[in-house]
């Protein structure tokens, strides 16, 4: 059901995109400053839908940074650009090689796997903003799996079993699990492994969700093999299609999602050697998962 919002001159509509997650926001220009009333309306919708797609946007990098800061503290990036430079605050997500040409062999494969952004940090991300600048004619979808629903879908015995457990997340595990070149010593030093509860409580609404993804390696205090097996089982459960919303990008989309209760991944369902897919990414720091 569409929801009308009238906050001063800003009139915008929020339309749910699926029963699992996702809503589009139409009629709001995110390149311009907005007041707290608009901010609160957006945050409310975000709590309900976990993924917001602001349609028909055109933000410069500075405007995207300014927008992102309205939601909290900016997060840095461990990954390197195709040329090996440390990523700036606005991170380029693209299928371009070091010469700037479209390529089917991306610099990193990590985003093809289910993950939640920066779960290898002590304080992982709260929200990610991704702004489409260049898109293939079709495809390059982003999939989101709703971890609140995945948790609700577990049987009582499994919930009790995993309630006290913590999974180990690391940049190194990400590199290994996603088939990338191993992490460099410099990267390992910069980001040693951290552990987070497998069941986390959403800081805003108090609902429980699973907290998993490609950055995990094993479970704290459990034989490595048993932990891997448990994480495998939970992962298979949590990524069933009934928990997944597929976002098909439109030109001008600015998508914001909640890393605290979603896994996501990109789908390479387009000719990556021919078409350019370029998005600008900014990330807001979250809180320590509990």
């Amino acid at each position: 059901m569409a929801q009308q919002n009238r906050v001063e001159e800003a009139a915008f509509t929020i339309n749910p995109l699926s029963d699992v997650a996702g809503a589009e926001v139409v009629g709001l220009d995110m390149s311009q400053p907005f007041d707290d009333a608009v901010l609160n309306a957006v945050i409310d919708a975000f709590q309900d839908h976990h993924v917001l797609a602001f349609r028909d946007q055109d933000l410069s990098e500075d405007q995207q940074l300014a927008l992102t800061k309205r939601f909290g503290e900016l997060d840095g990036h461990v990954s390197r650009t195709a040329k090996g430079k440390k990523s700036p605050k606005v991170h380029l997500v693209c299928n371009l090689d070091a010469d700037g040409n479209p390529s089917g062999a991306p610099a990193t494969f990590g985003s093809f796997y289910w993950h939640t952004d920066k779960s290898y940090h002590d304080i992982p991300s709260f929200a990610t903003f991704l702004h489409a600048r260049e898109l293939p004619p079709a495809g390059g979808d982003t999939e989101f799996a709703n971890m609140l629903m995945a948790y609700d879908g577990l049987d009582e015995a499994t919930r009790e079993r995993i309630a006290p457990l913590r999974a180990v997340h690391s940049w190194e595990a990400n590199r290994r699990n996603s088939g990338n070149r191993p992490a460099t010593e410099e990267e390992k030093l910069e980001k040693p492994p951290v552990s987070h509860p497998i069941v986390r409580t959403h800081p805003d609404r108090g609902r429980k969700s699973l907290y998993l993804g490609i950055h995990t390696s094993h479970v704290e205090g459990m034989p490595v093999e048993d932990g891997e097996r448990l994480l495998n089982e939970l992962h298979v459960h949590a990524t069933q299609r009934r928990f997944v919303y597929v976002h098909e990008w439109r030109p001008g989309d600015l998508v914001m999602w909640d890393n605290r209760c979603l896994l996501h991944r990109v789908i390479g369902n387009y000719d990556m050697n021919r078409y350019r897919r370029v998005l600008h990414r900014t990330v807001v720091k979250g809180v320590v998962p509990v």
Partner: protein
Amino acid sequence: MSLQESDEKMIEVIPTGAMLGAEIRGVDGSRPIPSETRQAILDAWHQDLVLLFRDQQLDIEAHLNFASVFGDLDLPAQGLLGLGRERHMPDEIPEQVNIISNIEENGKPIGALGADEARWHTDSSFVERPIGASVLYALEVPPQGGNTSFLNMYAALEDLPPDLRRRIDGRRALHSCVYSSNGERRPEFENVTDVSKGPGPLHPLIRTHPATGRQCLFLGRRLKSYIPDLPVEESEELLDALWAHATQPKYVWEHAWRPGDVVVWDNRCTMHHRKPFDPASRRRMHKVHTMGEIPA
């Protein structure tokens, strides 16, 4: 649980008599596998490279659990390439499972690969980090045809004529991701006209198995393969010679499927091939992959 474990008999390993392959008796893949049994299975697997478990009954969940005896679960080819789910897969099947079948329902195939020949290949070598095990479970098999053959790539390397071995020492080959093993082009990729420029990762031609420490030949798939830094003609000639050597019948074990068979092969040190079968007959297999390593 402790009762189950003490009841568990030692497994029986019956080698096929060919250069690879063994049947394992005394394992019910639908039940939890105690760690000693698991170790015995892995030892046999590293020794014989391909294991056959007869008369199994695995639902999807049991299949995934049994596969994880051989490592962490990985995705089917389509998912490994970042292309999402196989188009034919019904929503209720988890994405770690692939259906290999020629059966059509409502005019649409329910699985991959049809009824044609699948050429010699090793699974998923077209990604940077290829998979480890393939765990293939037969639900329906045709009355004839559709046999799967396996090659021992350790033996192929050990016997490699010294001149060929010298020519590939330290060299890598391109493993093209454009075509699947039945020769069909994946629609996401354009046809490759110049093999030296096609998409796909480079892997060493001689690979060391991470568990056994033994070296083997790692060829992947022949179609649009290329050995960098060589003129295309020379690369073609060298690859042809390697493939002719590696696919000799003496390195082969051929398996005729029965329903209930689970066959687990190690993609790091074997290749496999499927014979065509009558498209009017029904064949349905479920397949699960486990993670491997970046070849070194």
